[in-house]
């Protein structure tokens, strides 16, 4: 067996044409790898074009950022100056102070109501007491106690008209109370 001759015959081996065409199309249609495997070996060359492109990109990004800042600042100014909505009331501290004030005024009002209520009750009691002592106008014959009260009242009136001295008045009031 002549091995070398036989090995040369193997040169007739060939791929299927259809496979080869499809493979070629697929390979050329695929995108090349953009990220290099070995960065050191594939660093971009420092050409004027590369530098210019880098500077152009940096400038574009910088201008964009500047415009964003200006826009935001302008929007904030316009909002503060011309906005119909007042945001003063939205200040947290003033809100709390306002709430405290309202609470205090409510408390004062409640105390007032309470004291008025107490005075009212006292007045009602006093009126009730007085009405018990006062004679009631009716057709029946007045009794002796009612008669003495009426006389004492007349005496008070006489004192007040003729000689309104305190000691005389106190003595008369003591009589009425008894």
């Amino acid at each position, binding site marked *: *067996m002549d*091995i*070398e001759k*036989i*090995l*040369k*015959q*193997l*040169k*007739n*081996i*060939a*791929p*299927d044409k259809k*496979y*080869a065409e499809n*493979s*070629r199309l*697929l*390979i*050329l249609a*695929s995108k*090349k*790898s953009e990220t*290099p*495997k*070995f960065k050191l*070996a*594939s660093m971009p060359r420092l050409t004027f074009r590369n530098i210019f492109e880098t500077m152009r990109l940096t400038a574009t990004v910088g201008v964009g950022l500047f415009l964003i800042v200006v826009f935001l600042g302008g929007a904030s100014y316009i909002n503060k100056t011309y906005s119909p909505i007042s945001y003063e009331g939205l200040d947290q501290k003033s809100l709390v102070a306002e709430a405290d004030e309202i609470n205090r005024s409510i408390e004062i009002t409640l105390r007032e109501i309470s004291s008025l209520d107490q005075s009212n009750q006292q007045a009602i009691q006093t009126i009730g007491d007085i009405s018990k002592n006062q004679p009631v106008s009716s057709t029946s014959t007045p009794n002796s106690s009612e008669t003495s009260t009426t006389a004492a009242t007349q005496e008070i009136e006489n004192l007040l008209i003729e000689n309104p001295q305190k000691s005389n008045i106190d003595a008369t009031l003591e009589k009425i109370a008894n």
Partner: protein
Amino acid sequence: MLNGDELKLIKDAIKGEASAFGLLYDRYHVQIYRFVYIKTGHREEAEDLTHQVFLNAWKNIENYQHKGFPFSSWLYQIARNQIIDHYRTKKTNISLEAIEEVETDEDSPHKKTEISFEIEMVKMAIPRLPDEQQDIIVMRFVEEMTPKEIASALKKPESTIRVLQHRAIKNLQKLLKQQ
């Protein structure tokens, strides 16, 4: 040796011109397919692996560095690595049915049959050789590459290639006698 025409194609392909790489594909895809097919013994596997070889080459064309050798040397390196990776993940046995019949240059039917039989025997024996010897057999005797080109493809000194070549032929003869 790399000729001027091929060097221009490579430079254009590195720039990203798909048409330039397409021409390189046309020039070398049969060679690479043959190499892969003889080593694997399977048509479908050979097609897949060859496709992967050129896909990787196109994706990494920027990494190619011209050292005065044919572009095929770089392709053979990729192909060898691809086959090693393939067998690392998947072990396959050579199927007799998968081996296609190779056309011969003989005219007489008797001779044709005899040669075809011998070709099949050689095709079955080659994958049983060590990897490096397989590569040298295919590159030296099938593709008729020079020892210098083979040395570039296998990244070995030329003297080593000559020694390996002699050893490969001896081992192949032994295998064929055993069969």
